[in-house]
C-alpha cells in the first residue's frame, strides 16, 4: 500500500513519469497528494478538508501561540506544536474526524476522508 502510494506521489512530483503512472492508477494518484493545514491566528486553515483514504495530512503551526492537533475521539493527537513545528497523520480509513486544539478548544477543524478510488 505505502509503496504504491509512494510511486504515485513520485508520479505527481515528476511530471515526466506521470503519464504512465496516472493512467495506471489515477485514483491512487489523487489519494497520495499530501495535504496541508496551516495554523495561524488561532484558526485551522482550511477549517474543513476532504481527502481520499491513504492521504497524509500535515499541520504546520505558523502562529505565535503553541497549539495541539487533537482528534475528538483521540484517534490521533499531536504534542504541543511550537511556532514552525508540524505534525503529520495518515488517514488510512474513510470517516469524518473533528479535531481541535486542547490549548484553545475554540479552535476546531474537520477532516473528511473518502474511500480511496471515489471521486
Amino acid at each position, binding site marked *: 500500500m505505502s509503496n504504491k502510494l509512494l510511486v504515485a506521489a513520485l508520479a505527481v512530483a515528476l511530471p515526466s513519469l506521470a503519464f504512465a503512472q496516472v493512467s495506471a492508477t489515477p485514483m491512487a494518484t489523487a489519494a497520495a497528494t499530501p495535504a496541508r493545514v496551516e495554523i495561524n491566528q488561532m484558526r485551522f486553515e482550511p477549517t474543513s478538508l476532504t481527502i481520499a483514504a491513504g492521504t497524509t495530512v500535515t499541520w504546520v503551526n505558523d502562529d505565535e501561540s503553541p497549539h495541539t492537533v487533537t482528534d475528538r475521539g483521540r484517534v490521533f493527537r499531536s*504534542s504541543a506544536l511550537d511556532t514552525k513545528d508540524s505534525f503529520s497523520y495518515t488517514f488510512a480509513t474513510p470517516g469524518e474526524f473533528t479535531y481541535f486544539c486542547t*490549548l484553545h478548544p475554540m479552535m476546531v477543524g474537520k477532516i473528511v476522508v473518502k474511500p480511496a478510488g471515489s471521486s
Partner: protein
Amino acid sequence: MPVTKEAIVKEDVNLTRRRALQCMAWAGTGVVWTIGGGVPRTLGLLGEARAAEVPKGQLTFVQISDTHLGFKQPANPDPAATLGEVIAKINALPTQPAFLVHTGDISHLSKEAEWDAADQVIKAANKEVFYIPGEHDVADVDNGKAYLARYGKKTQGRGWYSFDAGGVHFVGLINVFDFNPGFKSAGLATLGDEQLEWLENDVKGLAASTPVVVLAHLPLWTVYEPWGWGTADAGRALSYLKRFGSVTVLNGHIHQIVQKVEGNLTLHTAASTAFPQPAPGSAPAPGPMTVPAEQLRKHLGLRNVDFVHGKAGAPALTENPLAA
C-alpha cells in the same frame, strides 16, 4: 490605623469588565485584604512594614501561577528572569510563607527541559511547592503522562489531591483534561464525575468551621465563556463546599486578577509570572499580550495568603505585583 475600605468584591456578584478592571486597579496598589463573612476589609496599603503587621503564628503561604518556562515570544522573551524576580520578592517577605502553591502552566510546551528550568529558579525559595497542572503541562503526546510521572506521585486519579496545613484543608483540583472542541460552553474545562465524587467524599467528614482552600488552573466560575474561561461542572464542586464558613478558590490560566464572592466562597484568579493576557472580550482572542517593556512587571506578580485567627477562619490576601 489601617485604612478601612468597604470594597469592591462585596457588590461584585455580577462580574463585568469594568468591575474586573477596578479589581485589578486595587490589586495594583498592593492592598492587603482581610475577608471575613464574605465582606472584605483592607488592613492597609502594602509596604514591608504593613505586611509585617499581619499577626504572627498563623499559616501564611504564597501563590504563583502561569510561569510558562519555555515561552520566548515578544510578550516576555525571558520568563525565567521574571520568575526569578518573583522568587526574590518571596524571599524578601517579612513573614516567610510556609510553602508555595503553583496553580499551573509551569511549562509552555510540557517539556522536561522547561520543568527543569522552572525547578532551577523556584528552588531558590527553598520551600515546599504544591503543584497542579495547566493545559500547557499536559500537552505532551500522551496527554499528561509526563506531568503525572514527574509531579503526580502522591496524587489521586489524574493528579488531584488534598492535604491539611495550619488547620486549613487544601484541595488541588484538575480541570485541564477532557476539553471538548467547540465554541461557547462546549469549550469550557471539566472536572469530571470521578474527581467530583472524590471531592464530595474528601470534604464530607470535615467540620464546617474548617477553612478550605481550593487550587485549580482554570477558574471555577465562568469568567468569559467565548474564550473558554470557565469550568462547565464547577457548580457541582462548589455545591460540596457551600456549607463551609470560609472557602478560598485560587486559580490561574487567565493571567490577570479577577475576583468574585458567592456567599462564603471567594474566587480569585492570579497574575502570571510570565506575561499578561487581554481583559475578557477586549481582543479578538485570548493569548499573550505584549505591553511596553516598562509596564510588563505591573502585570506580573505573586499572591500572599495569610490566615488570621478570629476572622471566621478567612485569609487575608495580598496581591504583590513585581512593579507598582
